[in-house]
């Protein structure tokens, strides 16, 4: 991955931010829902972030499996970068989801299906970051295992949340499916914006991960050669 792509992507994302914010508040119509109304505008960022959360997690899981099988460090770097970015997007999903719940149902947390799924997925990602930080020299293998198992577990989480009547259900049922075309346009534009943002973040994080690894190797080589003490 080259260095040059990152500023371009980040600039495109920045333009996207401005355009989407403008469109969200001027072009997109208010929903007819008497409770949501203006608050529905949270949706454009919340759902776009949720898409990125799942995308980045999937990338992390696949790269982790490939890393375990091939032991090529570049896949590890990519897995680490996308896991951290996914954790960031997950934090935004949870925060905006809670604010949405407060606006729509006047309560900070509801066990709404998709919010519950995001929470469980986010817990795996936080575990991943913790393992990375505290597992010493076997951190890469352990974290890769966690990511692989966590990604394979996503369908189970989905069916579990779907079938479990443990929590009282509340739902905005199918908001995305029934959008009028103006909203759809703004929504997909914001998804595109955050996709660019997400890719730019992952790429720059990959670079710092690779630099860190190379520095570590250089130091080890120096130690082996007796250059450093």
């Amino acid at each position, binding site marked *: 991955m080259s260095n040059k792509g990152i500023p371009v992507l980040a600039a495109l994302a920045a333009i996207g931010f401005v355009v989407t*914010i403008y469109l969200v508040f001027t072009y997109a119509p*208010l929903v007819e829902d*008497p*409770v949501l*109304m*203006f*608050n529905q*505008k*949270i949706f454009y*960022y*919340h759902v776009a*972030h949720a898409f990125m959360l799942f995308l980045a997690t999937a990338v992390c899981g696949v790269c982790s499996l490939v890393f375990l099988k091939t032991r090529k460090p570049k896949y590890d770097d990519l897995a680490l970068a996308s896991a*951290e*970015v996914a954790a*960031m997007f997950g*934090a*935004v999903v949870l*925060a*905006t989801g809670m*604010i*949405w719940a*407060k*606006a729509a149902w006047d309560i900070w947390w509801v066990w709404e299906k998709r919010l519950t799924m995001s929470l469980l997925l986010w817990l795996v990602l936080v575990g991943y970051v913790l393992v990375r930080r505290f597992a010493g020299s076997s951190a890469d293998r352990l974290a890769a295992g966690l990511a692989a198992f966590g990604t394979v577990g996503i369908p189970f989480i989905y069916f579990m949340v779907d079938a479990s009547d443990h929590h009282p259900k509340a739902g905005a049922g199918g908001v995305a499916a029934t959008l009028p075309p103006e909203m759809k346009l703004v929504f997909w534009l914001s998804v595109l914006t955050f996709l660019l943002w997400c890719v730019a*973040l992952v790429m*720059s*994080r990959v670079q*710092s991960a690779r*630099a*860190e690894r190379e*520095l570590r190797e*250089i*130091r080890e080589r*120096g130690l082996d050669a007796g*250059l*450093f003490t």
Partner: protein
Amino acid sequence: MMRLLILIALVLVPTVALAQPAPPVSADTAATRKACADAMNADATFAQAIVETINADTARQHRNAADAISKNEKHVFMAYAAMWVIAAGFLFFMWRRQQGLKNEIAQLKRDLEAAAK
């Protein structure tokens, strides 16, 4: 002494509150109601005026509520702010990492120079 006073107050306040007589149930509600119904039945325009007033009032209340909700920008603002704060936090974290890398490179260079001597 102070504690005793507090204790007495704690006991007294609910007692006094509970001892308040319940608000009297209006016995002549039915009579008033009947008088109103009679008046409305007697004069059709009077009845019409009352219904219109009530309808207009309800409509106004609904409009006010809708306006209040559509202008309730608090939550939208909070959500967008949360996104920016978290993104900024992540960028700060990446920047810190970058600084650490720079320090590490400088350290390596110093070590190399020291070793070359």
